């Protein structure tokens, strides 16, 4: 039973971390444009790290 002394706080603590993260996602507006965000990842502005002309 002693295990409960740290298991219960641990379980609740982990849940609380998840809850805080969820609140953060709401606050930072991550549900404002699900459609746009889903497609934004397909259009990355990344360029090759090494400029092709230098090769």
């Amino acid at each position: 039973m002693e295990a409960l002394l740290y298991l219960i706080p641990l379980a609740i603590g982990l849940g609380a971390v998840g809850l805080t993260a969820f609140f953060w996602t709401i606050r930072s507006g991550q549900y404002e444009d699900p459609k746009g965000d889903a497609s934004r990842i397909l259009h990355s502005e990344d360029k090759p790290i090494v400029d092709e002309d230098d090769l």
Partner: protein
Amino acid sequence: MAETISIKDAKFCPSGQTTAQDLARMSSEPALGADALTPYVQTKTGGEKSIDLMISGAHCSGCMAKIERETTALPGILLARMNLSTMRLNVQWRGDDGEAETIVAKLEQLGYGAKPFNMELEPLAQKKRVSFLLKAMAVAGFAMVNVMMLSVGVWDGGEMIASERKIMHWISAAIAIPAAAYAGQPFFRSAFAALKNKHTNMDVPISLAVILAISLSIYETIHNNQHVYFDAAMMLLFLLLIGRYLDNRLRLKTGEAAQRLAAMQASTASLISSDGTIMSVPAAMIKPDDHLMIAAGQRIPVDGEIIKGHSDIDTSIATGETLPLAAAPGDKLYSGMINLSAPLTMKALAVSGDSVLSEISKLVEVGEQKKSKFVRIADRAAQLYVPVVHSLAAMTFIGWLLLGSGDEVLRTASLNAIAVLIITCPCALGLAVPAVQVVASGRLFRKGVLIKSGDALERLAKADYIVFDKTGTLTLGSLQLSNMDEIAANTLETAAMLARASRHPVARAVAAAAGPGPAAENILEIAGQGVEAVIGGKTIKFGSASFVGAHNKASGTESWLRIGKAKPVCFMFKDTPRLDARTTIEDLKKRGLGVELLTGDKKEIASETAAGLGIDIWQAEISPQGKLARLDELKAQGHLTLMIGDGINDAPALASAYASASPSGAADVSRAAADIILQGNKLSGLITALSISKAAGRRVFENLSLAVIYNMIAVPLAVFGFVTPLIAALAMSGSSMLVTLNALRLSRR
């Protein structure tokens, strides 16, 4: 003409989803000038300027990427971010307010329409409510799993001693009390507001059950008794919040669709001042008797009367007629119509606030209020449910008090009375209806049908008489060349060279049939007659029969092409019905539903369409008020009407019909008024919607029956004092699962 060429040059949607409406908009609406944009530019604390633009014509992620990339590439732009869900682009830059004009011109060049968005229209309150419900749901879910984890330990903990159990209960209390206080707010507020107005709704028993379950559990925890109800209370909140969140999100989306109407209103006008100079002013600043210049292709900004010039006017937005009308001095113009062929001077009659468009918007509001009188099914149930349950609880209390004996009689009586309240809490009842609605709307969404209000399904299932609008609803709403086989390819190309420069629907149809190509030079367009040009030394005329010197052939829409002195060639046009219009109507008739056609279009065209589609009852040349009157007549005959329309002129009828639908190409005001929106160029979604709504109706009935059966078993147990928290939790989650699973059956077939 330069405008026509710019359409060809504009890069369209990269995935090829550019629609006919987008093309029409691009050619008929000039980009907004600086005067119309600067009032909407906001200056931030750091001196950066910012503007929100409503974008039209964007369809896919490629459009979004293109818009963001090209806008950011303009000099001085700090940020351009587009929201693909709300179709709004936020641009920030450093410098002059006038830069907004450059941005809009760039977007126009890319092939997208941009109108400033008035930030006052933002539904901030609804957005806050939806976001709060999401947070409340998360909190309730968190509390539910943690409290349940602890209570499973208590139920199963054979070797658990009283002091350990006490610790478990106190931890549960520490989680559940703040969580219930936070997540229960939507219900507590609504219940309090209802009680203050001496009403009752579903939130009253919900709030009471949550508060009583928590209070009783605190009492039991303090007295170190075996049973607590924290888990039951949290589960109740969590399950109900899911339904509440989905419902509110659906309504927020509807509100945002209505906003687009405001952005659609013509927002600038070219004012002719007393000294003859022309300046561009916002339409809201126009006063009656002001003289305005309307260029060819421009939307009429306010209601007015023509004082100079002859032109063709596209009146389809106000009357539903496919063909433009010739307009001359003295004719009236209404805001939203489009001037097609020649510049006009007009005198403003009414200011923007009381123009036809605003009037129709008001009609929609009235219709919507009428609709909200349909008491929501759950609230209707609550009016029966609440008194029954509360008197049952009171009787349990009195019964146990009278029949019981011993020291604890008061406690036992209150415990059992509270158990009755908790077990009868309308969990299944509160979930039964929303669960079916959410599943049904999800299934319809995948089939291309958008359901806008929760009770629309209920009404759709009951509708027994279908009223159709013609132009844009049963038909595609644009003319198409119907006798292409009879016309030689080079003749068609010659006609297209003349047609490409014109905005007239007939010319559009010819240009579309011929495909891209060059336009003739020095084209003369005569309003209401046709176009004329000289190609290779020959005078070529394309227009009405009298214009080219031919004899009218048929009753339908036709145009003639005459090259020099050669024999004129006839071009026939038709507003073609949607591909599945006929089968849809046959299907509706097979289901025993009445079908009727009401259109603002001419008699001959209406009768031809009706005959072609197999509609026996039709009325033509009918005004928006006439449509309303006909719907009232049908209502008086005891019919429950389903109105399907797309134009601004249909909006009042859509709002006042028992149920309503719009194709997705409809005017915004109509889409805002309709209960369901049919996506794609298909009407068959209507059949799907009708059958799913019928199935949903059956599921709601089954779910309500399940809830009743559940109560018939659980309530006697509670009344006679057999309900332990384990039974309460099992019974409540069991019944909730049962109704949810039953609702999910809808998505399978």
